[in-house]
């Protein structure tokens, strides 16, 4: 029955960097049949001097494929060094072939003579000669003298022997010691009030190790089922910048910056929360979706979904009365450029609810067109008039019942004839709208390029 003991090929650290100031876990994957004990040694890669020699650790439950972990305490090593380590793995049976040959001299008792300077022979091994095993107590490389733990009897010259051991020493696994890089992320405000974010990574390493690559990842949570929102992959650059646009309001995201130094040390910031909180705009009505048969497509109508901001030159205010908030225009003007809306001169209807001050005399509202023409509503202190490119006419007025109310002569009518409003007239309230109260009055103005009507309403 042959027991196998093989050198491991998977180990950590192995061409990596570790931080000597913290406790480290050295690991290797056992690839023999059964491990009985092991021991690690760490050497200086420059001069092969021993830096650390671990104690022999007996184990009883390590089989092929198992990972063995060896703890190396903090500060056992020193940062800034190039080192290597190996593992001595033991099994119970002495069937690991070391060397063989024929005896150099005749001997008797517990002495044997083999070749000179055989470096693989060491005490603790066993020599098989004349069909018996003997434990080697010592080997003198200069004379070839083996001292055994018991007598082997008389051994003739040129007697065949084989030396076995019960352990294997692994290959060397080089590594370096470097202080753990410090890494942080700046640019996260709490709460974050924008849908976009620009983050910067801050990296430093005490021994001057540079970054080999870095990676940004953004998640929508910090649990195992969190979804990766963005992932840069490994970016082989030291510019640690990350931009993302699309953070949803009232959500918490988690960002991580990780990477590896050129010495093989990995670093990570861990998951850093980004709490997003802002006033989120909301569409008041969904756009219309219709079928376009000619294009065989669905048409999403976005007309009217736009934003216009009027310009106030008078520092006007927004007082409230009851549930109503309104614009109180005291000085200057409030104007808005609507050119981009592409509203055609003959294809619009403007409606405005306004309360005109008692001492207001002059323009109320003006519409300018691209061809230089304009429309204005003007209050002359008595009448509201429509000014069409300089030509003024009285504005048509409506009674609450939506019936036209005054003739140009100031005669109330109940027919469908159009009438004009005269603020000076006194009329029968049962028949028509009258100016029962002094100005200021509230009006709804309806205006097209051709027509203007008003309707008095309660403010």
């Amino acid at each position, binding site marked *: 029955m042959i027991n196998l003991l093989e050198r491991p090929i998977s180990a950590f650290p192995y061409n990596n960097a570790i931080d000597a100031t913290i406790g480290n876990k050295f690991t290797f994957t056992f690839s023999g049949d059964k491990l009985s004990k092991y021991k690690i040694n760490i050497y200086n890669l420059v001069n092969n001097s021993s830096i650390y020699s671990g104690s022999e650790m007996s184990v009883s439950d390590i089989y092929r494929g198992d990972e063995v972990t060896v703890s190396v305490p903090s500060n056992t090593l020193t940062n800034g060094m190039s080192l290597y380590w190996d593992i001595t793995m033991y099994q119970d049976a002495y069937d690991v072939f070391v060397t063989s040959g024929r005896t150099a001299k005749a001997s008797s008792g517990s002495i044997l003579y083999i070749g000179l300077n055989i470096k693989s022979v060491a005490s603790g091994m066993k020599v098989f000669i004349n069909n018996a095993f003997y434990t080697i107590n010592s080997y003198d490389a200069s004379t070839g003298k083996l001292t055994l733990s018991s007598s082997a009897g008389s051994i003739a010259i040129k007697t065949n022997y084989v030396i076995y051991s019960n352990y294997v020493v692994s290959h060397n696994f080089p590594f370096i010691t470097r202080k753990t890089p410090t890494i942080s992320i700046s640019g996260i405000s709490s709460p974050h009030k924008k849908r976009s974010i620009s983050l910067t990574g801050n990296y430093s390493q005490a021994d001057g190790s540079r970054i080999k690559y870095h990676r940004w990842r953004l998640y929508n949570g910090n649990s195992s089922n969190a979804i990766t929102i963005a992932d840069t992959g490994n970016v082989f650059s030291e510019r640690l910048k990350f931009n993302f646009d699309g953070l949803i309001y009232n959500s918490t995201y988690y960002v991580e910056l990780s990477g590896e130094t050129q010495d093989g040390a990995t670093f990570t910031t861990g998951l850093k929360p980004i709490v997003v909180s802002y006033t989120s705009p909301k569409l008041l009505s969904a756009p219309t*979706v219709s079928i376009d048969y000619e294009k065989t497509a669905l*048409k999403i109508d976005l007309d009217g979904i736009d934003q216009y901001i009027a310009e106030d030159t008078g520092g006007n205010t927004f007082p409230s009365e009851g549930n109503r908030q309104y614009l109180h225009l005291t000085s200057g003007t409030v104007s808005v450029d609507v050119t981009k809306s592409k509203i055609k001169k003959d294809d619009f209807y403007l409606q405005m609810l306004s309360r005109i001050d008692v001492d207001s005399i002059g323009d109320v509202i003006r519409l300018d067109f691209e061809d230089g023409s304009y429309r204005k509503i003007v209050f002359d202190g008595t009448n509201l008039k429509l000014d069409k490119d300089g030509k003024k006419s009285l504005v048509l007025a409506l009674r609450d019942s939506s019936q036209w109310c005054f003739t140009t002569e100031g005669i109330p009518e109940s027919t469908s004839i159009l009438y004009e409003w005269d603020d000076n007239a006194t009329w029968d309230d049962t028949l028509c709208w009258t100016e029962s109260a002094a100005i200021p009055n509230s009006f709804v103005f309806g205006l097209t390029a051709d027509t203007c009507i008003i309707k008095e309403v309660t*403010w």
Partner: protein
Amino acid sequence: MSLLKKITLYPKQDVDYLSVVRGKPSLDQMVQSMKITPSWKSTPNLSLLFEFNGDFVSSSVVGLTSRLVGFSIYRRSVNDSVLHHVSDLHFDDEKSIDCLYDYTVQNNTEYIYTIIPLTENEAGVALEGSAVTTDFDTWSIIAIKPMSDNTYVSGDIWTLESDVTTNPFTQNTCVTKFDGFSKYPKVSIGERNYVSGSVSAKLGQISCETMQFDDNVQKLEAWRHFITQNSQFLIKDIKGQMFISKILADTTYEYDDSILQMPTTVSFEFVETVDASDKTVYSVELRE
């Protein structure tokens, strides 16, 4: 036609609202309109509405703290919970977007669109529109141009509706059987999986206006130019299939000499080159 350029309000008045709708109403319609306070929800064709609730902003989007810059548009079929990104549309300072056409819709499928307003700093609340069911009765071939990994813009569109004949579609896969000495064969399956097919149809159709068969040499030349261009095509059939394809070399056409109008029958073969299911083909119409 001249456009409305500027609206100016003058002092010594209180203004509750100012609205502008598209369309020229009759006098009676104006009278009726005055009875109702306009709102984004209930007033059709509303282009402007200043409500002066503490700001000088007219927008169909509430909660704006910075300038509205565009929209994100998503689509899903009614039975699908996954939203497919259609496009991010950004306003231009000079032009506004009138509408977006989404071509990547299958026939006989009910779709819902979700719109998210975008400002300079914020992403808005997603708002779902009502469902729309496609019911096209033509094949369509749309030349497309790639814009990004998953997005294409549409070019010319041809629809085929008369005498459409499809030959069997081929699902091209890579399955190979190896017979050996064992009881069962080995079967290996590769990644290849695309559809190819061929279609023929009358190029022209009966015009509803003239009741004449609309087919002439100019139309045929336009078709030849269209179908032979070095472009990818979005091909959609009446069943609801949708392929991003290349047209193969074997495109043919013939006409029936026995009929006075000599109606042209065109044929072409296509081969699927890209999975259309996660792609978007769209076009945008700017406000004129």
